């Protein structure tokens, strides 16, 4: 009996506590920088697309919501011909971001993407690409990779030595 009255009193005192509710549309939720929301495709500091069309994100995606087609430009630089994410399927697990070898695909703290028409949730490359490097400002994949593309031969990347001539014994 006493414990019942005590618990009623404790419940009553909650009247004077601070409210937990966030009045959402007027008052925004505080999202941390690592919050996994809308997916974007980032560019490297030279404004080139980071995505190299390796399909790892599509392979990692547990709900198969990413589809893309890789092509190459005249310099031998790979990029996606189309890149499509169906956000009505996406579960925002972030596996694509973890799988991406070039930091191209990133999840950002934004969830306000409600639509009346389901078809509008299918984002094409133009919707996904942003004009910036996202979470990794200085990173430029082709500048650190030992891959020869137009305008950059082997051994010309950052911190890269000249290739060793395996047919010569000279030091």
């Amino acid at each position: 009996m006493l414990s019942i009255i005590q618990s009623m009193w404790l419940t009553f005192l909650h009247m004077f506590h601070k409210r937990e509710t966030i009045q959402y549309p007027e008052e925004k939720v505080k999202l941390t920088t690592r919050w996994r929301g809308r997916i974007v495709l980032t560019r490297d500091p030279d404004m080139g697309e980071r995505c190299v069309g390796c399909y790892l994100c599509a392979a990692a995606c547990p709900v198969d919501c990413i589809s893309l087609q890789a092509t190459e430009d005249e310099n031998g630089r790979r990029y996606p011909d189309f890149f499509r994410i169906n956000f009505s399927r996406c579960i925002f697990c972030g596996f694509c971001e973890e799988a991406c070898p070039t930091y191209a695909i990133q999840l950002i703290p934004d969830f306000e993407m409600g639509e009346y028409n389901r078809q509008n949730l299918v984002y094409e490359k133009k919707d996904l690409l942003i004009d910036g490097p996202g979470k990794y400002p200085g990173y430029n994949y082709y500048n650190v990779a030992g891959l020869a593309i137009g305008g950059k031969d082997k051994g010309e990347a950052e911190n890269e030595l000249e290739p060793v001539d395996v047919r010569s014994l000279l030091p």
Partner: protein
Amino acid sequence: MHIPVINAGWIIAGVLGGVLAIAPGLIWVERRLLALWQDRYGPNRAGPFGVLVVLADTLKLFFKEDWIPPFADKFVFVVAPAIVVITVLMSYVIVPVSPGFVVWDVNIGVLFFLAMSSMGAYSIILGGWASNNKYALLGAMRGAAQMISYEVFMALSLMGVVLHAGSFNLQDIVEAQRGMWFVIPQFVGFMIFFIAGIAETHRLPFDIPEAESELIAGFHSEYSGMKFGMFFVGEYMGIMLVSAIVTCLYFGGWLGPDFLPPIAWFCIKTFAFIGVFILLRASLPRPRYDQLMEYGWKILLPLTLVNLMVTAAVILYMEK
């Protein structure tokens, strides 16, 4: 004392209109209060402080499909929700809101209330049985057992007040409390009546006939639309009724200092008890079914009998 004579038609209209207006409003009150005690805001979008959520709820209930399951007993299924509303509304007949403001000033007032609240059990039993659904039937069985066993000492706990006042008429009982509210000499009786009242309206924590977590919604699992709405409104009217009766029997009804009219005192006290009902819901878990029955028959019933006999002995001694 001067009792203003009011046309009976106005009284009926006033009580009926008041009850039917306040009962749906209680849905909003309950949601806001529960939210208050759970550190939330509750409905606060539609209209000032979210009051219009009541209108939205009602409209929604009206536009829902009024579904009668093919396996149900149609006639009983339709009648059951009406019974709860009718019996509760009938009970309001004897509630004196202020001096002279009572629909039927009858000398068996308390008995009439007890009879009508017992009839309310039929709506649960018939509703659960006519649904032809095992969960509904289980809920109905529980409801019947609960209401019948709590009925017994609910009536007996009131007898203390009747002994003090020497009348079954609620107006006389209120008038008899001019010196002292009956809650002081009849505190045990008040506690027992209040507990029985919660069980009678099958409100939380005694919502065993409904028990969402075990019986889906118990006796009204199969109900939808306005038939469900009737059960819902009946429950809220039951809360109001028990609060009003507690106010009249133990807390001096309309009596109070003169700076407010009697009807205001009555409403303030009644709403305080409605608040307690909601606070109970916010703070207590549901007991197990056998615990409920054991509590009723093994603790409350003997306690009521002891209370009744002690009251009778004291009154007899005082009169000698």
